[in-house]
């Protein structure tokens, strides 16, 4: 009996190791192929990849993805502040007044809507914003991104604020601090690192959204547009359109853009790791 147990133990360890490797392998393969395929394209296109316009289907040279980069930056810059503000205030409300029916409602709604299909948001914003505005725009895209990112931002901030031990709240009340001061001078500074991580992760999510922009942003690739009320493009949308097309030149641009997106995402991720690596309270 003793050796049976040992055997089971060894088999289990082996199985766990094998399946874990199987779980990680696809991602490693993905990163490897994206870098190999994409970086060769970026190297070939050189700096022009970041400043040029996308090629027509029949052209020979690679061009660039400047309109998409600009569009992504603009839409992220438009949606991030509103998402962070709304999420932060709602998180403060739910931590400070947990029994209030409004907080319960916000909590329930945010939890449930975290899994809403992003294409539904795109449809809604098309009906409510694009048609009345008589055109696609970066603003519509930013609104769609805000709606999608709100549950995530709220959850991050709420976890961050909740992780502050209650001993600090008691200490603050003991010295007669007002409630607003408690929040701004005690909780947020203590939770600032998790809050920053929350902001960065929201930004990463917003940067990589495709379905939300399908019917809202407008696929504007003719030049770099900087106005929020004009149609815009974004990197994931470009990748989506180009990878579903049969033109080799567009496939290569799509791989290059994918590599760029992956690098940008990894940069944000590393930034969060840098921030959180500090000693946690």
């Amino acid at each position: 009996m003793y050796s049976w147990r040992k055997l089971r133990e060894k088999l289990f360890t082996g199985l766990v190791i094998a399946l874990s490797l199987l779980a990680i392998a696809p991602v490693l393969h993905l990163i490897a192929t994206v870098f190999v395929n994409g970086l060769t394209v970026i190297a070939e296109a050189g700096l022009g990849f970041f400043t040029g316009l996308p090629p027509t289907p029949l052209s020979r040279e690679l061009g660039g993805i400047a309109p998409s980069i600009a569009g992504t930056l603009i839409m992220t810059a438009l949606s991030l502040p509103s998402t962070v503000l709304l999420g932060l205030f709602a998180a403060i409300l739910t931590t400070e007044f947990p029994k209030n029916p409004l907080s319960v409602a916000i909590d329930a709604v945010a939890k449930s809507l975290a899994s809403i299909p992003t294409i539904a948001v795109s449809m809604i914003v098309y009906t409510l914003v694009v048609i009345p505005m008589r055109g696609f725009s970066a603003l519509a895209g930013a609104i769609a991104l805000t709606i999608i990112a709100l549950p995530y931002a709220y959850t991050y901030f709420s976890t961050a604020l909740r992780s502050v031990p209650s001993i600090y709240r008691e200490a603050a009340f003991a010295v007669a601090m007002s409630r607003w001061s408690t929040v701004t001078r005690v909780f947020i500074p203590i939770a600032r690192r998790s809050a920053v991580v929350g902001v960065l992760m929201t930004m990463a999510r917003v940067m990589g959204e495709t379905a939300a922009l399908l019917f809202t942003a407008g696929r504007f690739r003719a030049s770099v547009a900087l106005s929020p009320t004009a149609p815009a493009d974004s990197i994931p949308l470009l990748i989506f359109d180009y990878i579903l097309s049969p033109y080799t030149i567009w496939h290569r641009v799509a791989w290059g853009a994918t590599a760029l997106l992956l690098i940008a995402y990894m940069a944000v991720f590393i930034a969060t790791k840098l921030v959180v690596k500090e000693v946690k309270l």
Partner: protein
Amino acid sequence: MYWKDLYKLRLSLVTQVMYMRKNTVVVMLITVAIVIIATYSILQIYYGGSKEPLTSATQTPTPTTTTSISIQLQGVVLQGAGATFVYPQLSEWAKKFQERYGIQINYQSVGSGAGQSMFFQKVVDFGCSDPPLSRDTWLKYNGSVLQVPWLFGPVVVVYNIPEIPKDAVLRLDAIAIAKIYKGEIRYWNNEYIKSLNPDIAHLLPNKEIVAVYRSDSSGTTELFTTFLYKASNGVWTKDLVGKSVSWPVEATGRGIGGKGNEGVTQNVMQIPYSIGYVEWSYAIKNNLSIAAIKNAAGNFVIPTRETLEEALKNARIPTSPIDDFSGIVDSVIYATGEKSYPILGPTHIILWRRYDDSKKAEALKLFLKWVAEEGYNHIVEGYVAPPQSVKELLIKAANEIMSQ
């Protein structure tokens, strides 16, 4: 807060930053960048969206002969959407037009149905659709829309059969294709297909045919199904004609949907033993094998300039862009002529007669005139220049466009 202490020590800003933790600096820089972009965008909203995109001036070389009108129009952007059929040609035209006049044309290749839909919702300035507006739609908007069939191009049937060498041509007729897309012909070495191809009958493999069709609302589908309806002697019925049909082969599990001409091309390229229908330039650019189709005179023809021009002779084109164009497809598909290619189709540009924005109206007029005069000298491989009457239609349409 330790940086408040530093401030009390009255250190300069640079020294303060030097003393900060590296990570704080990094995060500060990112926040500052985001704040700058956000403020810039907000200022843009405040001071009007009429500012032209910044890089238009640097991207285009100054046109050598500019009239006063076109200097005013530099930087205007025209939004279009619609057929994937015309996209390769339109992107070439847009590039040349931008080099000449500095006006940008942005086109979303989303399919004829989506294009018409976006056009009528006024979300884009012009729409492109392979079939013209149906009679009912035209009646609804009578007098306020203009249509011009500015390009003609064949819908070709492409196939991917590894056993057949590149120089051999598979012959098919409407009955065979109709039966394939109805699911009734299942294998490539079916007796009927063999009877149409006596020379390569021995090469046809015993594999199932995978039928690729359009998953979106497509003008190319309407042209293709109209041909099947007209030429298949009742095998393909009238209720299976349209931009978005319920393909019988789908119910057998041997059908795959592709998004746009691009999606169908990609699917046929990647799936062996498949068959699909795409616009000619997609087949040429991606090196797909094109089938020879039996025309009304009984000959098997492949698309070439001659066969297309002969089919084009039968086109019944109305004389004014305000007219109803719904009969044009019927006149040019499966038309008479010894050598005419049976699946030739028009593709239309659809415009409003009145535009609120006068600059856009001017830009559109300029574009139509440019296409009529210059554009037809730069036809991309895969399309056919329309007859002379169309050039006149373009000029008439340009004159009809007004702005309030």
